[in-house]
């Protein structure tokens, strides 16, 4: 009898139990989707959806490849799906939502506010490349694989993102 099994054991991905996977990679996934969609509720939903999708598709993960890059790819695609869905259901784009505010007790500095606003001004691909490199420390090769593009294109998007951010934050960073 042949059963379709995941790359590892039934309840494991890349050698990690489901809860271990969340513990280890939650921050990376959440940071990415938070900066991509710019609001807390969508970020929470997208991050959870990313892990649920990863668990459901665990048989497609190839053991030995970068698990974090695989998760971030699922997260990026989930964001693009959500954005498409929102575009078809309402006129206002996600970027038009209120600017992020930090809860009391957190570092609500001017720099953070400016940086968040500046990141939101980047186009989607630039934002993703910038976040995957600065937040998740993916190499340009891994970013290229995650976004299904070439390494050169990923580097070019990074150059554009850094250039625009430098211009917007000129003299304030």
């Amino acid at each position, binding site marked *: 009898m042949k*059963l379709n099994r995941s790359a590892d054991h039934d*309840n494991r991905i890349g050698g990690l139990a489901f809860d271990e*996977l969340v513990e280890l990679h939650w921050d990376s996934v*959440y940071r990415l989707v*938070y900066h991509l969609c710019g609001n807390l509720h969508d970020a*929470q939903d997208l991050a959870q959806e990313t892990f649920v999708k990863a*668990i459901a598709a665990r048989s497609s993960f190839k053991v030995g490849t970068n698990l974090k890059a695989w998760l971030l790819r699922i997260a990026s695609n989930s964001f693009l799906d959500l954005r498409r869905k929102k575009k078809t259901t309402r006129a206002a784009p996600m970027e038009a939502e209120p600017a992020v505010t*930090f809860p009391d007790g957190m570092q609500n500095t001017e720099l953070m506010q400016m940086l968040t606003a500046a990141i939101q001004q980047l186009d989607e691909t630039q934002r993703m490349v910038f976040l995957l490199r600065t*937040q998740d420390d993916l190499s340009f090769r891994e970013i290229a694989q995650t976004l299904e593009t070439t390494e050169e294109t990923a580097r070019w998007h990074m150059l554009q993102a850094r250039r625009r951010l*430098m211009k917007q934050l000129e003299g304030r960073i």
Partner: protein
Amino acid sequence: MNCQEAQEAILLSDNPADFTSNPELAKHVTECAACSEISLQLSRMQTAMATFPMPGSAEGKAATLKRVRSFEMRPRRLILHPMFLSAVAALIVVGVGLGIVIYNFDRPAPPTVVDRLIDWNAELADAPATQQSAVFSARAAVLQSEVHDASLSDDDRELASALLQHGNWLCVNTDPIDRAEKFSDLSDLILIRMHRAVLNNDEKAMQRLSLRYDQVVRAGIGGNLARMKANAAVSPENTKKLERIAKRNADQERKLQLLNDRASKALQKELKQALETSKKQGKNMRGQGRVF
């Protein structure tokens, strides 16, 4: 390297503060205040990004952990391979088929219209003279219609016609010896079909034929001969008829023995039954004190 080239290299770099892989750029940044400032600003931006607070992260993580832990506790659903499912389906089909074969293994085939005609003839043979007409008319028309509509081989259709005529004849002929002789003809026709069943190793046909042979010999021949004996002394003409019946019975016994020797074990059980019937009939006739 001029400033424009250096700044582009910084913006394209993996790490805007580490140029060890590009000594020329590292030298330019060290010597150029403007390019050094760009490198520093990008580094500060990267550091700020790394320390960026994530509102709602803890709540989202807790909710996600709760959800994924419920997956771990849930029994894993087996996703069966299509080949496995196909094999199971094939086994079920084979199993059902085998079940049907086994269920029907010892069951005789349902009676055909020919069988019903033989049964009807045997009933006519058994029926008292006063009830002959009632037995005949009760089923004659239905059987005739069935023969007309049934899909029969030429051989079976010929036998069916003979049986219908035989039934008609029995209704108007009450002489037991004549009737016995008619049934003796009929038993010969059945024996021919038993021979065919042996050749085809057709166990179900043999079951049906053996049963009918027993009815015809016992009720048709034996019953009429018993009535003849009870009625009156045997005339010389009837003696000849009796001799013919006895001779035919002896032939049938011999043929049945030969068929039994040739038949497969599955058919022998039925043939032995027919052979016993034939032997018993021969013994009864000899017991009546006649030498044939």
